[in-house]
Structures are given as C-alpha cells and as structure tokens.
C-alpha cells in the first residue's frame, strides 16, 4: 500500500512541477523524464536481472529511427510512430538477445557493445537515408497533440510516458516475473534447478528493457524534433548505466533520481566550466566509495527496507 502511495505521490509532485516551473526548467524536466524511461529500461536488465549490457544505445536508437524513418518516408502520424519506435526497440533487443545471451558476464558486455557499434556504423553507412551524423529534422513537438503549444505537448507526452513506464515497472518487479528476474541475478544455477528456463527469462528481460528503451528513444526524437546516428554511439550505452548506478540499481525510483541528479550535475557544472565530465567522474568516484548501491540503494539499505 505505502509502496503505491509513494510512487503515486512522486508522480503527483512531478505533475505540479511540470505545470508550475518556468519553461526552461519544465523543458529540462520533460527531457529528464524521457531519459529516465530509458534508465528504467536499462535498470530492468542490469539492476534486476543482472545483465550488464553495453549495447543499450542500439535499443534507444532503434526507437529513435523506428519512429523517425516512418514519419520521414511514409508520412506516418506522430503517435503511431511512437508505438513503432517502442516495438522497434523490443524487436532489436530480442534479436540481439538471441545471440548475445549465449554469453554471460564480460563476454556479454563485449558482445552487446559490438552489436551497438555495428548498429552505429550501419546508420552511418546508410547516411543518405538516416541522415547519418547530421540526422533528420522531425516536425515540432506540437504536431503530437494538435491544439497545444509545443511546450505543453512536450510536457504532457513526457509525463504520460514516464508515468506509464514507472507504474508498469513497479507492477512488473512486484510480480512473479519480477521475483524470477531477481532470482536469475542472485543465483542462476539454483534458478535453473527450480525449473526456470534461464535463457528464456533473460531474453524476456532484455526484450522488456528494449521496449522501454525504444519508447524513450522514439519519444526523445519526437519531442525534440531530431533523429541522428549520434544516439547510437557508445555514450548512450554508458549514460543509462551511470544514471542507474547513481540512483540505485534494482530500485524502481532509482532511474528517475539518478537521471535527474546527473542531469543537474552536468547542467550546474556546465555554467562554470566546459569540463563537465570531470564533475561526473568525481561524483561517480565518490558514489562508489561512499554509496556503492547508489542513492536509493543506500537509503533502502539503511532506512527504508520496504522500498521496491
């Protein structure tokens, strides 16, 4: 009960913030919410199932282009394109998983990284179609919800997507499947001898993770009107990992907390220096030293043991 209360309260606070913040910060928040959906997806694979992937940029980019290509070349409307991006993320994650999940641990990291790099190079190779590094410019966010201004449409879509992602991930981790995902992370051999087809479970986790990542990629492209091959670079595989580590791997709200913290860390550091990555690095070193379980992971360990 208190679990659902906490998460619904969080969503209520976010709604108030979106409605009352000045446009610059409201747009930032919309960006954070969409990226947090990406982090939620990454967290399902890494935080709950223990799959350390370095290839999630591929799933994010699958969402970006899954939405952008049909809009650009087929004239698909915006909302169906969002769904197309979501499905593209899940599909690409499924195909990647079928091959990459034959490995585990470090090999899995390397194989997923290679898949993502191959995806990036493919986007560049088909530059005339994908726009390559220059990318494709998409219609303004206002086209998503006709009748509203771009700012309001952006905030509404970002909020709706994040709410759906947060609540579905909460329901998922509290379900039997969620318990099974954690079991795979904790002791795969034991899980196999309890009758779980661990390959199928991990593939399911990766596909779910890909659906979230694809939805986030599609929304990011639509809300900010741009699709480019840069979304498939290694940076977009590392970022969700950092957000999840900072917020707390294996916590439902951790991805939001981590994404917001990292975003403002970079934002604030950026007003003093161009070397923002230095601040990110120092923050991560401090985190590993003093709170290796991330912000919410530490809070759960010390105080709120009921946190999902």
């Amino acid at each position, binding site marked *: 009960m208190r679990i659902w209360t906490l998460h619904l309260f969080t969503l209520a606070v976010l709604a108030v913030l979106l409605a009352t913040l000045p446009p610059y910060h409201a747009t930032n928040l919309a960006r954070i919410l969409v990226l947090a959906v990406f982090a939620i997806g990454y967290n399902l694979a890494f935080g709950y199932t223990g799959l350390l992937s370095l290839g999630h940029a591929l799933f994010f980019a699958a969402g970006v282009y899954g939405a952008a290509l049909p809009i650009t070349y087929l004239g698909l409307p915006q909302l169906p394109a969002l769904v197309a991006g979501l499905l593209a993320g899940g599909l690409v994650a499924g195909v990647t998983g079928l091959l990459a999940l034959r490995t585990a641990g470090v090999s899995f990291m390397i194989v997923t990284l290679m898949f993502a790099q191959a995806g990036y190079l493919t986007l560049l190779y088909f530059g005339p179609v994908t726009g390559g590094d220059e990318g494709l410019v998409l219609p303004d966010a206002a086209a998503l919800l006709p009748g509203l201004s771009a700012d309001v449409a952006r905030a509404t879509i970002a909020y709706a997507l994040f709410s759906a992602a947060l609540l579905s991930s909460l329901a998922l981790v509290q379900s*039997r499947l969620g*318990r*099974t995902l*954690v*079991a795979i992370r*904790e*002791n795969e*051999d*034991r*899980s*196999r*001898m*309890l*009758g*779980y*087809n*661990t390959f199928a479970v991990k593939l399911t986790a990766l596909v779910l993770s890909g659906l979230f990542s694809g939805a986030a990629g599609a929304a990011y492209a639509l809300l900010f009107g741009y699709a480019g091959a840069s979304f498939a670079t290694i940076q977009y595989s590392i970022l969700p990992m950092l957000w999840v580590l900072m917020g707390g791997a294996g916590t439902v709200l951790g991805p939001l907390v981590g994404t917001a913290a990292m975003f403002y860390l970079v934002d604030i550091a950026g007003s003093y220096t161009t070397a923002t990555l230095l601040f990110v690095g120092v923050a991560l070193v401090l985190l590993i030293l003093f709170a290796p379980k991330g912000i919410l992971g530490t809070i759960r360990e010390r105080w709120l043991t009921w946190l999902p």
Partner: protein
Amino acid sequence: MASVILSARGLTRHFGGLRAVDGVDFDLQTGDIHALIGPNGAGKTTFVGLLSGRIPAQSGTIALAGEDITRLPAHARVKKGIAYTFQITSVYPRLSVFDNVALAVQQTATRDLASDVAAALSRVNLADRATQTAGTLSYGHQRLLELGMGLALRPRVLILDEPTQGLASGEIANFKQLVRSLAPETTVLLIEHNMDVVMDLATRITVLAAGRHLATGTPSEIRANPAVQDAYLGGHDASA
C-alpha cells in the same frame, strides 16, 4: 513388484581421460528411499548430475516413468518432476526466506502463493523465519530451506546430494524423520556418506566405485556383499 520411476542404461560421462561415470545401469523404484554410496571419486555427484540434467550425458539413456528424457535440459526435467538439492548449499542468500520458497512454489499450479509458501515452510519448521534474509540463517537452517524449496516443487523424484553434511547430530535426527515422512509419495535418491543415516533410512542402496555400478540391494544385502566390503567398507580388515 514396484514400478520403476527413473532408470538409466549405459550412462557414461568422461572428463578427459577420467571415466567419472562409465556405463552405469540404474533403476529407481517408485516410493523408495534409495541411497547412492561409494568411495570418494566414485562418480556419485556426476551420476546424479546426469540424472538431473546439470551435466549432459555422452552416451546412454535416461527415462522418467518410461519417457526418454536423455536430451531434455535441466529446467525441463525439473518441470517433469525431478528436483535436485546441491551438495554445497545453494539458496538465494540476499532474498528473504519467503522469496526463496516462493520461487519454487510459483513453479507449481498455485492459487494462493502466500499460504502455499507458509505450508512449505512449516513442513521444514521454518515458518517463523519467513521474513528473515536467507543468508543470515544458520547453516543447518539453510540446508532445511533448500530441502523445503525442493519439496515445494512437489517433485516425483527428489535428489539430495549429501544432505546431512555439516549438520549437528540433533539436526540429523530431524532430517531423517523428515525424509522418512516423504516416502512413498515422493521417491528419494540421496548421496550420503554418513553410514548411520544410510542404513537407517534407505530401503535400497546402490554402490558405485570408480564410475561403475558395483552392487544394488537392501541394506543387509549390501552389508553382506564381499565386493562392496572390499571396495568401500574397509576392505579385507572389515571382513575379518
């Protein structure tokens, strides 16, 4: 004549030049408590690994109630009713006792997860520890928890690999009582080094030596078998 629930024919597994299991024929009668004994390195753990599917067989066949399961992966065999507890205790140490057992219970057709978990826990006398983190249980309780997880799968065949290893004598007495209460609904195959437990519990005993089948019989037959005495129970000194 009781029916055979699990049988192996010519089961073989070599590791390089080592013939860990070498052409073993084996029948497990329904409802038995069957002990598997043999000197260290006889291939006992490898043999039950082949039965449970953790280790693939190189040749030979395995049948469960007449159905060939030789090529089935381990998780599918568990679904068919072969549960296995590890020689080295293997639970989920960072999860609660409840979640440990729930992971087994949710594999069965359960309507009410919470009450079925409670029932499974009270069977191994851990009902009052449901909220405890499994890793903080004593060693004896962790072994009981693992047994409870195996039982919660409602298996037809329960394979126990050295279940009493490291238990105190009082715990062993409780364990014997528990295993005895399982038969004849559940057929039990256990690897055991403690001869008191074997002679006390087992209705039938199979002896392996150097990867080969040496003898199968009732406890008194095995005790009287000169080949077994020679290989295992102390050689010529014991028969003197």
